[in-house]
């Protein structure tokens, strides 16, 4: 897993609530047996019309906005557990998603793929979306060590929460498999003495 420490980037504002993983990557793209290429189809049915032409109204097709941070509305990533959604977002080039609320499974999947979910307050999110929408050059800085998200050049910032263990994993690029395998003896001992 790629390490994450700090990131400074412009951001893309996706001002929609309850973005579900079917929108992030529709089911018809889940037939692959590897993790490659999902970025090409991220938000497929919002980015393209059914005839394959680009939907110029969708934010990802607006050349004013760019960057490796996605700022999205409340309850991002709800619905299906498909990790393909995290692969698609990472594949497109995002390293951070900012929202006021994340669905559980998506959040875990993101963290397992080096994609940092930054949960901010509703008021901070509205402020961010407004500023980015009115000035696409607005830069954000995310400092994982300090658990802080700020607008570069302005005195606007907020702390965010992250599980201490997951933070260590992100900073060092570790994943859970390493940890679990190193605890095999303990797991075998548990199996031998299950109470149920």
């Amino acid at each position, binding site marked *: 897993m790629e390490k994450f420490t700090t990131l400074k980037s412009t951001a893309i504002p996706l001002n929609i609530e309850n973005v579900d993983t079917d929108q992030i990557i529709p089911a018809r793209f889940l*037939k*692959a047996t590897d993790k490659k290429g999902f970025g090409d189809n991220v938000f497929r049915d919002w980015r393209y019309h059914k005839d394959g032409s680009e939907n110029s109204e969708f934010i990802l097709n607006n050349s004013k906005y760019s960057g490796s941070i996605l700022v999205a509305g409340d309850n991002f990533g709800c619905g*299906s*557990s498909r990790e393909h959604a*995290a692969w698609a977002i990472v594949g497109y080039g995002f390293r951070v998603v900012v929202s006021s*609320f994340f669905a559980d*499974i998506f959040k875990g*999947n993101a963290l397992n793929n080096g994609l940092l979910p930054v949960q901010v307050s509703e008021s901070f999110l509205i402020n961010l979306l407004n500023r980015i929408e009115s000035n696409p050059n607005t830069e954000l800085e995310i400092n994982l060590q300090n658990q802080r998200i700020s607008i570069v050049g302005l005195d606007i910032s907020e702390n965010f929460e992250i599980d201490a*263990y997951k933070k260590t994993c992100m900073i060092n690029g570790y994943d859970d498999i390493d940890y679990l395998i190193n605890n095999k003896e303990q797991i075998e001992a548990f199996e031998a003495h299950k109470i149920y």
Partner: protein
Amino acid sequence: MSKKTLFDKVWDAHVVSSIKNGPQILYIDKHLIHEVTSPQAFNELEDRGIPIFRPDQIVATADHNTPTINQDQPIEDALSRNQLAQLSENCKKNNITLYELGHQYNGIVHVMAPELGVTQPGYTMVCGDSHTSTHGAFGSIAFGIGTSQVAQVFASQCLLLTKPKSLRVTVNGKLKKGVLPKDVILYIISKLGTNSGTGYFCEYAGNVFEEMSMEGRMTVCNMSIEMGARGGMIAPDETTFNYVKGRKFAPKGEDFAKKVAYWKTLPTDDGAQFDKEYHFEAEDIEPMVTYGTNPGMGIKISEKIPKDENPSFKKSLAYMNFEAGESLINKPINYVFIGSCTNSRIEDFRVAADFIKGKKKANNVTAWLVPGSKQVEAQIIEEGLKTVFDEAGFELRQPGCSACLAMNDDKIPQGEYCVSTSNRNFEGRQGQGSRTILASPLVAAATAVEGKIIDITKHLN
């Protein structure tokens, strides 16, 4: 001793160890896998040279990406065919039991596992599918996981998790005629919203759930994820024990009696505390339909679509081509789908057949009846339900996830409405540009017969 909830008891019995200021290592009893969310996990382990730790605790099926006609013939779509071939190969290589397409036990993972007795009270169960919450109907902790976690369970039979908070939804009273378990859960989600359960495990309590069949309880627990809860649970009781007893993988003889004695200790202690509690009255619930693009956007069938100025709400109504203040009654509907891990069990087809018997499907309607498993399919034929469906002009297809997520060819065309017994009405869920209205099997059957949505409550009284 402190009072514990059902969830606490099952969780605590599975904690291998705890990381200081971090997650816990939770032991997983049963791991269910399917073709879509497992291949990358198999690859990951192979790339890292890690063996599968407990292959005998894994059960595999093919369901998401399978055709629902001509299952005995090679699959036309090359990508789908390859995905199924990979599953077969991976299971063979790693000694994992697979009920592949066409096998007498094949079916939707959340239908076939309970049928086979793989699902049991007090277990921890996971699957790379968010509707794994279904199995909580047995009083097990069951939840959906991502593919990285599938790989973790492959490697260690464990997951690193922070214990979720607890939530209890109690429904007491007497359900009205025509109100099915699907209506109960759609009602609850419409009241609580799609993210009220995020970070929680939900226990359903009250006489309404106590009196429900296992099929009904599975429908309810299945949709827990639609209010954000990772899982839902119902305390195991005689209904549960009777369902499990005698199934293929159920404990037998003395072993079964011992297990039952343990299962009886699992229900929530009187006075145990929940982090959040909600109460509803059964009498307030009516047959439900959704009008928007998330499962929380539901109304009683007799109600009108509410008004809301929220831009996401308006975007949703625009997608559905509905207007605030409008009623869904008399809306012409051209597609009806009865199936999915929410409502494809025998009871669902009995309800549908009971309504359909002696009537005809409306000419404008394409109706797909898709059983949840080969066993359900066999039972539909055995009970004579297929004859009822055939005579009424309905098409009984072969088992699979089908039009619930439209990964196979069962897609609803652009712009068309589908009254569906599935679990998600997201934009394009049932096919690009399709518009889903979630409902019970009874409402779906009535829609198929009438060719439009009717007020089923008036029809029954």
